[in-house]
């Protein structure tokens, strides 16, 4: 063999071997049953509501995991490679981990330009879109608005509708099925929301402290007020000076509750509670935060039951 060309030949052989592998099973064929991946469990639950038996849905992040910090494990690539649709929260929530997974999935459908990519934030009402300049002096701010928007049931409905429309595009034969599933979900959600609003009515105007700024959509919808955050700035861990400020504020405003997401350390919230008599509640921002919260409606049932119970106990 001519030594000069050995490099080229080795490379060509490798490509041919690759092409041979290509013929082996593994390329995802379009299936009647939509193969759906979502970035979070909330989106997965909404997709299951409308997809029914015509969609297999799986989430990348778990509900008890901080959705800002998910590891881009290669095992997710195996699932993304076969997906017909990827539904994401957007607004920069997944920016630290999802883009390389999408690029490396080798799946043309779920690229941003593909027909199987849905950014759920485009369907939702977004709060806290900054009107002035944004700098990182403000912490890890999201310049496109608060990405925890699924915690408003109205947005849950909007996301479900967008997913149903996307499903109908990808599987037109089952469009009527998806529409009927969506209508049914909307009805159940509306009934549940009526019940939740009634339950929360006595708490209207209650001021709370939250660990991270995860709750504006929830508190807006149910009439709670967020007085402050355990974090001095988004993504910045609690500091002694800021903790002292929070303690003083709780005492001054007689705030009763500190809401903490399940993936944050309880040390600082508990220290604040010990100083002030406020109560620490581990509220769930996502489906799957605890095993009994298996779907979107149960997420609100759980959180509202927790809030009601805590405030009833204090009276």
């Amino acid at each position, binding site marked *: 063999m001519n030594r000069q060309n050995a490099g080229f030949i080795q490379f060509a052989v490798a490509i041919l071997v690759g092409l041979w592998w290509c013929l082996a099973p593994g390329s995802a064929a379009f299936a009647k049953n939509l193969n759906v991946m979502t970035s979070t469990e909330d989106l997965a639950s909404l997709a299951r509501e409308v997809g029914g038996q015509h969609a297999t849905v799986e989430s990348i992040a778990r509900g008890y995991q901080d959705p800002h910090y998910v590891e881009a494990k290669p095992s997710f690539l195996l699932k993304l490679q076969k997906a017909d649709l990827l539904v994401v929260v957007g607004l920069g929530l997944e920016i*630290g981990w999802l883009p390389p997974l999408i690029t490396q999935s080798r799946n043309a459908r779920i690229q941003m330009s593909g027909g199987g990519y849905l950014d759920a934030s485009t369907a939702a009402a977004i709060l806290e879109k900054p009107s002035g300049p944004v700098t*990182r002096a403000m912490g890890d701010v999201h310049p496109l608005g608060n990405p925890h928007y699924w915690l408003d049931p109205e947005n849950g409905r909007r996301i479900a509708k967008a997913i149903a429309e996307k499903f109908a595009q990808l599987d037109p034969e089952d469009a009527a099925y998806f529409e009927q599933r969506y209508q049914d979900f909307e009805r159940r959600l509306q009934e549940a929301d009526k019940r939740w609003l009634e339950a929360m009515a006595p708490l209207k105007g209650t001021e709370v402290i939250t660990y991270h700024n995860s709750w504006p959509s929830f508190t807006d919808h149910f009439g709670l007020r967020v007085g402050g955050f355990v974090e001095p700035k988004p993504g910045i861990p609690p500091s002694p000076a800021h903790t002292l400020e929070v303690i003083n504020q709780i005492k001054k405003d007689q705030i009763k509750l500190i809401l903490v997401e399940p993936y944050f350390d309880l040390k600082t919230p508990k220290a604040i509670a010990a100083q002030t008599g406020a109560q620490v509640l581990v509220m769930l921002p996502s489906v799957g935060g605890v095993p009994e919260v298996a779907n979107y409606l149960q997420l609100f049932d759980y959180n509202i039951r927790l809030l009601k119970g805590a405030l009833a106990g204090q009276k």
Partner: protein
Amino acid sequence: MAKALNPDIGIIGNFVGATGRNNVNAYPSLSLQESEVSFQAIVDPYARADFFLAVGEEGIEVEEGYVTFPALPGNFLLKAGKMRSTFTRVNTFHNHTLPWIDRPMVQFNLMGGSLDEADVGIKEAGLSLSRILPAPIFLEATAELFRGDSGSLFHASRRSDVSNVFHLRSYGDLTESTNLEIGGSYARGHNDVGSDFITHLTGLDATLRWKPLRRAIYRSFSARSEFVWSRRQEDATTQRAFGFFASAEYQLARRWFTGARVDWAERARNASQHDSAESVVLTYWPSEFSQIRGQLRRTRYAEGQTANEFLFQFLFTMGAHGAHPF
């Protein structure tokens, strides 16, 4: 509207300082070692492009600049441009994503380091084609063709003196929190003795990671090791050299990481000589966008000298929020 179509721009400042005595291979006392400017954008419905410029005190170099076609038929991923090769895991890391301030000694000794060019590893202009293989676990095969000029490792005297790299990467989740990655690599290229003289490199890498999902921002552990065997043809002989490193990193709290690394490597051009080193590292994260790191390093050089050094580093990020490496 024009702004919306601009690429994402990020700048990572990398300020490094060193104290202690090192007469063999010394860092400057204080330097803005190599800041990285990144431009990343989707080119069109078929491609995305990533540019990483290394801006040092002495000039600008293209660290990486490539176009990626993520939507090819047959589930292939093609990259074209200048890029860090997939020969072992650490070679693909940019300086600011390393869990240490310096690169492991085995990269310097066996993968193209020289006193004139501190930045080592295989990074070249070429093509990279990879595919996930059908298997019960994650298995990815990559084939790369490069021009054949890489530091002091490969040297192309003729156009046909290309180098190539093959990498097989396997990954498995042991539990929800623990995973193991094992990779094998092979590289071949012409060396600076002449067109007829080849350097072969074989590499093995393993990484074990643990991160409990419920406390992912507070606790993590990773251990990694890489072994490299070099076979360098020279006029009369063939130099066969071996080197490895092993390291571990533990996250103590949300902002604190500690780690240690052991290095041992023969020299590619004189395999009878070997160097070794031990390091301990402490890292503090004021926020996700900055990092302060100190590294105590003791190096024993083949010349018989021992260097005890303290390296320190400030990393700071501006602009676009890049993805975290895995």
